[in-house]
Every structure is written in C-alpha cells, then in structure tokens.
C-alpha cells in the first residue's frame, strides 16, 4: 500500500573500493546512563529470589497496610507484600525483554537479510507483508490473538515476537542492500561463495551493531506490550507482572479514598517507566553511535550559529 509513496531507490553506486571507514564515535553519555539503569534492573531480577522478603503470593500481612519494617512498600488489597511483587515483576519484564525481544530480532533480522540479499520478487513480496503488518493496529491485534492463545508468559512472548518483527526487518534489509554494493562482498560473490556463507561471514558481522540496537528497541516494545496486556488482564495469572499489579491497584474499590495508592499504585508505574527510560536511553546511545549524523545535530557541532 505504500508502493507509490516510496522514494526511488538510490541509483546503484559505483563499487566502493576504499576500505570501510572506521568511525571514531564514542558511545555517548546517554547510552551509558541507559545501560546502567538496565543493568540495575537485570541484577534485581536475577537476585529477586534472595531479595524478596516474602513469596509472591504469600498473604504476609494485613490488607493495604502502609510501609513498615516488615513490609518496606506496604501490602496490597489482599495482604501480599508489594516489594516482593515488584521484584517478581522485574523478572517477568526481563524475561519478556530477552525472549520476546530476541525472538523479534531473530525473525526480523532473518527476513530482512533474506529480502535484502535475494532482492527481486522475494524482496518485493516480503516488503509488502511488512507494509501490511505495519498498518494493522498492533494493540487490538495482540489482544485478539492473546485471548485465543490463552494465558502464559512464553505464549505471550511468542505472540509479541510474531507481530513485532517488521520494523527490524526493514532496517536490516536496507543495511544489507547497501552492504551488497561493497567491494569485499562483490569480491566474495565473484569468487563463487554461496549466499548462506556470504551472509554469515561478510554481512552478519557488519550489521552487528544494528542488530544490537534492534534488540534494544524490540526489547523495549516487548516490555511495553507485555505490561500493557497484563494491565488489560491478559497476562500470566500465575506471575506478578508490573501491568497486573497496576490493574489490581486501579480496580481496587476505594483505592483513592485511602493512602494505599502511594505504595501500591505508584511503585509499578515508577518501575516500568524507569526501565523503559533506561532501554530508550540505551537505544538512543546506540543510534548515535551507529549514525553519528544524528549526534552531530544534537550536540557539540550544533553550537554553530543557529541561523543558516
């Protein structure tokens, strides 16, 4: 459906004989901040079984009891420890980030590489499918599929991966298209290397950084969607996802007539926002590292007189 609006493909450039230029871009500060945030959450998720004061479902105190020495973040509507639930939620989010994000990357990168390398009808067909999936509203689609597929975290990850790959495929495809014109790839083709080999030996290493950025982006979206689906009541009922905690809190009658929202509603919001900010910062950092032009517009060189 976008066929007519696409800018014409760049004309085939003459073979680039110069060796690939080493880009001397530092990994920007924003990326380090993001990495630090994500790392903290990863450690919390890994250490959750030892850090949690109670088991997730354990009724360890009175309902909606404020923060105390026994319950650092108070208890929820049925008397479960909010801190333990939050830590469990971190595990859920990290699992989703890795599994759903990784799955998205796997599907997207494979299809993108195939499309970019094969070209012709395969490419055109795959890109039509990408356009098609991109224009269908994602959240209602996920909701319908998730209700039919039934609850379960792994199932959810599979669904998210199956519907999220198009943007990754598109980015990888365009990168492969530009790599195809490079001298060393042309040489490999000339020496009669087979496609699978060339893709693995020459293309894959060059798209490495883009794949990492793709993973970060996919992971962020996966976390958002999983928490969102859990918030709508489509999560795994056996685990305390941040979305599910949010849903329980908002559904609790009279939440706002007590102070319970301060320790029950606010923490999951802060947690999911903070983790996603970390992921986004990491993504922005990687983007600037890959495409220094973006960084130039935002930082040092931008201080030239602003007027053209």
């Amino acid at each position, binding site marked *: *459906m*976008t*066929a*007519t*609006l*696409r*800018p*014409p493909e760049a004309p085939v450039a003459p073979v680039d004989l110069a060796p690939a230029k080493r880009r001397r871009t530092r990994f920007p500060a924003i990326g380090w901040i993001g990495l630090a945030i994500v790392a903290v959450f990863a450690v919390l998720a890994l250490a959750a079984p030892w850090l949690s004061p109670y088991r997730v479902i354990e009724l360890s105190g009175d309902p909606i009891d404020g923060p105390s020495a026994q319950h650092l973040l108070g208890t929820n509507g049925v008397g479960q420890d909010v801190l333990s639930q939050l830590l469990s939620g971190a595990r859920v989010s990290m699992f989703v980030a890795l599994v759903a994000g990784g799955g998205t990357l796997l599907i997207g990168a494979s299809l993108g590489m195939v499309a970019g390398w094969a070209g012709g009808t395969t490419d055109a067909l795959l890109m039509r499918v990408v356009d*098609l999936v*991109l*224009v*269908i*509203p*994602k*959240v*209602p*689609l996920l*909701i*319908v*599929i998730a*209700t*039919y597929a039934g609850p379960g975290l792994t199932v959810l990850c599979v669904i998210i991966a199956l519907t999220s790959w198009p*943007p990754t495929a*598109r980015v990888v495809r*365009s990168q492969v298209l530009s790599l195809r014109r490079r001298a060393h790839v042309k040489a490999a083709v000339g020496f009669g290397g087979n496609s699978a080999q060339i893709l693995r030996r020459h293309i894959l290493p060059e798209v490495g950084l883009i794949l990492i950025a793709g993973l970060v*982006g996919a992971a*962020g*979206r996966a976390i*958002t969607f999983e*928490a*969102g689906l859990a*918030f*709508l*009541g*489509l999560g795994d009922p056996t685990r305390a996802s941040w*979305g599910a905690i*949010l849903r329980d809190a*908002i559904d609790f009658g009279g939440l706002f007539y007590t102070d319970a*929202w301060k320790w029950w*509603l*606010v923490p999951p*919001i802060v947690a999911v*926002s903070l983790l*996603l*900010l970390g*992921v*986004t*910062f990491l*993504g*922005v950092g990687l983007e600037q590292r890959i495409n220094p032009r973006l960084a130039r*517009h*935002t*930082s*040092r*060189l*931008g*201080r*030239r007189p*602003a007027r*053209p």
Partner: protein
Amino acid sequence: MATDVIDRRAAPRPDQGPHLPQAGRGGRRFATMALRSIGLYALTMLAVVVVVFALPRAMPGDPLLALEDPDNSLYLSDPAVREQVRAYYGLDKSLVEQFRSYVGNLARGEFGFSIARKAPVGHLIKLHLPWTLLLMGVSLAVASVLSFMAGVAATWRRGRAGDRWLMIGMTFFRAIPEYALAAVLLIVFAVVFPVFPLAGARTPFNQYGGLERWADIGRHLVLPASALTLSLLGTKFLLVRNTMISTLGQDYMVLARAKGLPDRLLKYRHAGRNALLPFLTVVGIQAGFAVGGSVFVESVFAYPGMGTLILRAVEARDYPVLEATFLVLAFVVLAVNLLLELVYARVDPRVGAE
C-alpha cells in the same frame, strides 16, 4: 514507545526544493494511483478479516464439544439434534462457505451477539466507538499541532538549551507507556489536586443541557486526551526536527533569508512546508498507535470508549466483542491511512509523476 514509526517514506529528502503546488496536472495518473491504493487497502482489510476468521478455527477443540459431553449441562443426547445445532451455526458447511457468510454478515454490520452483555455486538460498538473517535481525534490533532510547532522551534534553536530540553522531554514521553502516563496524570490532577474528574466521560445523573453538557464532556476529556497526546508527541517532534534541519542548509533557504524575509515566513512557509509531507504520513501511521494508546488510556480512566469495551470483554472472555473491536479499529486505521495517502498524492506532485 513507538520508536518504529519513522517510516522510510518519511525519510527527509534533502535535495528537494520548496514545494510548489501544480494544479491540474497528472489527473489520470492520480486516478490510477488512487485505485491502486484503494485496492491494496481493501486487500489488507481482507487479510485482517481472514485472521479474525481463522483464529478461532485454528484453536484446538470444537465450539460445540460441550454438546457431546454427558457431564456438561449443555449435553444433547440425540445425535440428530446435535447435527441440527451444528447446521444452525453453519459448522457443517465448508470453510469457504463459512467464510462467505461471515463476510456477508460483516458487510451488513452484523458482528454477532454478546452473551456476556446480552446485546448485539454491533449495538455495543455503536455506543462505544464515538467516545474513542473523540479521544483519538482530539489527541491526534493537538499532538500534531504541538509537535510541529515544537519541532520548528527546536530546529531554530538547535544545539542550544531550549532544543536540548525539548529533546530530553520528548524522549521521556516517548519512552513511558500510555498507561503509566495516564496513571500519573490521574494521580496528580484527580487525586492530589482534584482539578479534573477521576473517571468516566460525563457526570452521571446530571441534568445538564446545551453548553453545560459540552463543558462537562470537555472536562472529562482533558486528562485522557492529555495522556494520549503526550505519548504521541515525541515521534512526530523528532521527525519534524530532522526534516527541518536537513532543509536549513538548502539554497532556497539561503535565498529566502537573503531576500530579507521575516523569520516567521522562513520557518513556516519555506522550511515548515517541506516537513509537512512526511509529517502527513506519520500522522497516518500514528493513527494505529493512537488506537492502541486509547485502549490503555481509556481503561485507566474508565472512559466509556472501545478500550473499556475491550477491558470488560477480556474479563468475560467475550470473543465476539473482542473480534468486532479489532475489526472496527483496524477499519478505522486503514481508512485514515488510505485517506491520508490520497491527500498526499494530491498535494505532492512527485507522486503522480513517478
């Protein structure tokens, strides 16, 4: 959120001059192009319908399995009666025939019956859709205007403090999911400072008439629309800023400046106009995100649109309602995209000329 929406179509094209509308050219090309777009969108809608049709049929089991189970309250002992029930639901026919009657029903606006809500699904949609369209429409419009102005402003101050703060703010709102934003707005402006109502779209049992009624609806709309607007801002802002920056060094910009044109004209007439076309495409893409966002935002504020309908349907595993909401929302998004594509082709002379 929504980091993937910067479409290839929307990539800045630095080599283009200012856009001059050329009326009366390429009328036939436009017609061909329009027909092709309509065909492709119709095909996409068909794919959506096929997915919805195939999903329940791909699941293991049989919807009428309960009839054969002696322990079930729906058990029918007579195989002939069972066959009758099967025939009533059309499950004895071939998949092709089932699909044909399914599409026929959809075309007549018959989405089935919601047992949980004891109402025809079409009726439920008619009740809820207007609220979602209102919320989406207002948010998309406000977000478009704000992000465009912010993008232009940031370009003019690029590299300076104002630009940097805008960038940080927009990245912030782009990262945080709609439901979290909505919950924060709810806490701050409805609980801590009770300026706006907690939930709903209207004051229940009110006797308002005329202007008061609209003011009431507006007051209830402020928080949900703000949450959705904020989550839509970031992507468009980044796009406008990137496109504008790439136009700044162009010859025609230098010429315009040399002519001594005032800043306002430079910003909006010359540079802004070029950013407008990719912007239009992104508005279309964002219609899809706005649909998803409004589902989340509505379920935080119990706003009586499609989101709340979906939320209740999920609780009751009300499949007909969930399918219908997906079909209708997909239709809305596809229609908006098609419309924008046609407008785009009409406005951009290069599309017809390809």
